[in-house]
C-alpha cells in the first residue's frame, strides 16, 4: 500500500522551473531507490506517516502484552523483568517513534501546502532526518534480544536504575535515543527554515494557519530541549562507561539532578506532543462549523505563552522527591497558571462552534472527541497540580489515566482527525464513511473503557509500572484490558480505511470540504507531486 502514496506526478504540474528539485521521470529509477532517495516533501511526509503507523502498532502490541498480563492478578504470561521492558519500550516507542514522527509527517505534507511553498527548505536534509528514524528504532528494538534484555527502567529512565543498575544494552538505548533526537532536531530546523522563508508572497506571519503557527512554536521547543535530552543521556553514558558521577551519590553526584534535567526536557516535550494537535483541531473545527476560528489572535498568543510556561513547571513531576517547601509552592503555582491559557483554547473552540453550521464528518468527530477528552485529561492535570494532593496521586494509575487521556484521545485523536481531514488531499478519494464511523466509535469506546477505570484504580491506591497487583484492583484492570484490546483491534479498521482510500472511493474535488479555507485546498486532489512551483498569490481575505 505504501507504494501508491502519493500519486505519480501529473504532466501538467511537473513544469520544469529553474532551480527546482531533481526531476524524477527522465530515467525511471527503481521504486526502492526512488523512496530511499526521495527529497519530495510529500513522499517524505508519507514515509514519516507510514513509519509512525508501524511504530504505533509495535508500541501497541507492547501495550497489549502489558494489559494482557494485568488482565488478572498474579503472574501469568510474562516475568516481571520482561514486563518492565514492555512498559519502557511502549513508552519510548509511542513518544519518540509514533506521536512525534506522525506530527513531523503531517508537517512535511501540509506545511508547504498551507504556506504555498514548493517544498521544504532543505529537501536533502529532510530525507536524511527521516532515514535516521528506522535506524534509531531498529537499534532500540534490537536491545530486546540482547543479553540482559532491553531498557527496563521506564521511559523516564531515572538514575541510578538506568545507570548503575541498568542492563548492558543501555549504551545502545542511549545511542538510539541520540539518533532519534538528531532526527527531530534536523526536522525542526527544516520546518523553521521553511516557515520563516518560503511563505507565498503576501502571506505574513499573522496570516498563517494555526497548524503552521503551532508547528513553528513546537519546532522552537524542539530546538531548545532536544539538546538538553542529548546532554542528559550523554551524562548517563559517561556515568555508565567512563566512571563519572553525575548522578551517582557515591561519587558526589545527585540522582535528583537527573530528574531535574530530564523534566526540564520532558515537560516541554509534553507540549511538543500536543501543540501541533491544537493546530490540527483549530483547522478542523472551523471547517465543519463553517465559521472562522474564534479568537485566532488569542490562540496564537496562548500557544506562545504555553510554550514559554512549559519551561517553568518541570518540577511538578517531582513533588515527592523532597523538594524544599518554597520550590514545591513555586511549581504548584506555575503549574496551576498554565491551566489558564490552555482553558482559553478550549473556550475558543467551543465559541467557534457556537452559532456555526455544524456537520459531523469523520475528521470533525475525532476533533470533537479530542476537545472533550483532552479536557478530561486537562482536568486531571489540574488535580495533579495541587501539590499536597499529588502526594497521593503521584506514580499511581491516576497519573497513567491523566497522561493517556492527553496523549491518546488527545494527541493521537488529533493525528487521526488530521489524517481523515487531509486523506482526500493525499489520495484524491474520501475515506470510506461507514468504516470511518465504525473506527471512530470503537476507538472512543475502547479508549474510555481502557483509561477511565485507571482513574479509579489510581485513587484506590494502585501504583504504576507493576506487573501484579492486589485483589481490590482486579475489576478496574479487567475492564482496562478489555478496552485496550478493543481499542487495539479497532485501529486495524484505520489501516483498512487507508488502504481502501488509496485504492479508490468517492472522488474528492480540490476543495474537499465545503468550509475549508486554507491554501492546501487550492491545489488539485490528489495533490500532484510538485505544487506551488510558481508561488501562489495569497490574498489575506479571511484573516
Amino acid at each position, binding site marked *: 500500500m505504501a507504494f501508491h502514496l502519493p500519486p505519480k506526478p501529473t504532466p501538467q504540474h511537473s513544469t520544469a522551473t529553474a532551480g527546482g528539485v531533481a526531476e524524477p521521470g527522465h530515467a525511471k529509477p527503481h521504486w526502492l531507490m526512488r523512496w530511499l532517495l526521495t527529497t519530495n516533501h510529500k513522499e517524505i511526509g508519507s514515509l514519516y506517516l507510514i513509519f509512525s503507523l508501524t511504530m504505533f502498532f509495535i508500541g501497541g502490541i507492547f501495550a497489549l502484552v502489558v494489559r494482557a498480563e494485568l488482565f488478572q492478578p498474579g503472574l501469568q504470561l510474562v516475568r516481571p523483568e520482561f514486563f518492565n521492558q514492555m512498559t519502557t519500550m511502549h513508552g519510548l516507542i509511542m513518544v519518540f517513534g509514533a506521536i512525534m514522527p506522525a506530527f513531523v509527517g503531517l508537517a512535511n505534507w501540509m506545511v508547504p501546502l498551507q504556506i504555498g511553498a514548493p517544498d521544504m527548505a532543505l529537501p536533502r536534509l529532510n530525507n536524511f532526518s527521516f532515514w535516521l528514524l528506522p535506524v534509531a528504532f531498529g537499534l532500540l528494538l534490537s536491545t530486546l534480544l540482547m543479553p540482559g534484555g532491553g531498557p527496563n527502567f521506564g521511559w523516564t529512565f531515572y538514575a541510578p536504575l538506568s545507570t548503575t543498575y541498568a542492563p548492558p544494552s543501555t549504551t545502545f538505548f542511549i545511542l538510539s535515543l541520540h539518533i532519534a533526537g538528531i532526527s527531530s532536531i534536523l526536522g525542526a530546523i527544516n520546518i523553521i527554515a521553511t516557515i520563516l522563508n518560503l511563505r507565498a508572497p503576501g502571506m*505574513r506571519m499573522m496570516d498563517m494557519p494555526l497548524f503552521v503557527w503551532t508547528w513553528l512554536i513546537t519546532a522552537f521547543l524542539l530546538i531548545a530541549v532536544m539538546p538538553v535530552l542529548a546532554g542528559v543521556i550523554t551524562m548517563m553514558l559517561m556515568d555508565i562507561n567512563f566512571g563519572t558521577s553525575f548522578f551517582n551519590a557515591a561519587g558526589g553526584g545527585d540522582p535528583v539532578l537527573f530528574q531535574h534535567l530530564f523534566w526540564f526536557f520532558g515537560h516541554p516535550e509534553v507540549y511538543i506532543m500536543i501543540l501541533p494537535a491544537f493546530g490540527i483541531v483549530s483547522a478542523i473545527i472551523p471547517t465543519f462549523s463553517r465559521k472562522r476560528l474564534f479568537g485566532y489572535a488569542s490562540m496564537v498568543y496562548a500557544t506562545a505563552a504555553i510554550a514559554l510556561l512549559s519551561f517553568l513547571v518541570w518540577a511538578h513531576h517531582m513533588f515527592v522527591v523532597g523538594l524544599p517547601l518554597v520550590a514545591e509552592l513555586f511549581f504548584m503555582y506555575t503549574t496551576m497558571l498554565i491551566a489558564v491559557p490552555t482553558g482559553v483554547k478550549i473556550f475558543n473552540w467551543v465559541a467557534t462552534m457556537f452559532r456555526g453550521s455544524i456537520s459531523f464528518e469523520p475528521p470533525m468527530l475525532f476533533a470533537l472527541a479530542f476537545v472533550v477528552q483532552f479536557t478530561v485529561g486537562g482536568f486531571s492535570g489540574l488535580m495533579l497540580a495541587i501539590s499536597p494532593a499529588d502526594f497521593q496521586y503521584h506514580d499511581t494509575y491516576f497519573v497513567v489515566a491523566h497522561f493517556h487521556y492527553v496523549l491518546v484521545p488527545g494527541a493521537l485523536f488529533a493525528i487521526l482527525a488530521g489524517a481523515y481531514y487531509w486523506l482526500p488531499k493525499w489520495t484524491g478519494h474520501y475515506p470510506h464513511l461507514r468504516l470511518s464511523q465504525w473506527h471512530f466509535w470503537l476507538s472512543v469506546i475502547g479508549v474510555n473503557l481502557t483509561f477511565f477505570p485507571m482513574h479509579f484504580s489510581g485513587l484506590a491506591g494502585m501504583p504504576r509500572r507493576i506487573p501484579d497487583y492486589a485483589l481490590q484492583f482486579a475489576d478496574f484492570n479487567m475492564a482496562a484490558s478489555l478496552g485496550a484490546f478493543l481499542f487495539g483491534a479497532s485501529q486495524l479498521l484505520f489501516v483498512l480505511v487507508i488502504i481502501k482510500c488509496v485504492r479508490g472511493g468517492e472522488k474528492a474535488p480540490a476543495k474537499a470540504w465545503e468550509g475549508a479555507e486554507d491554501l492546501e485546498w487550492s491545489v488539485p486532489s490528489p495533490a500532484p507531486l510538485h505544487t506551488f512551483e510558481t508561488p501562489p498569490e495569497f490574498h489575506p481575505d479571511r484573516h
Partner: protein
Amino acid sequence: MWQAIKSVLAAFLGVQKDSRRREDFASNRPGIFIAAGLLVGLVFVVLVALVAVLAAR
C-alpha cells in the same frame, strides 16, 4: 516597548484582539517581542517565586 509588553501580557492570559495582533505583526520587529517576552517571563518568575517565599513563611 510598552506596546510589546502589553501584547506579551495579553499572551500570558491568552487573550488578544485581532486589531492589536494586526498592529503587532505590522511592526515587523520580532526582536522587541522576544525581548519583551523574556522580560515579562523573568518578572513572572520573580513574582511567583516571591509569592512562594512569602507563602512559605
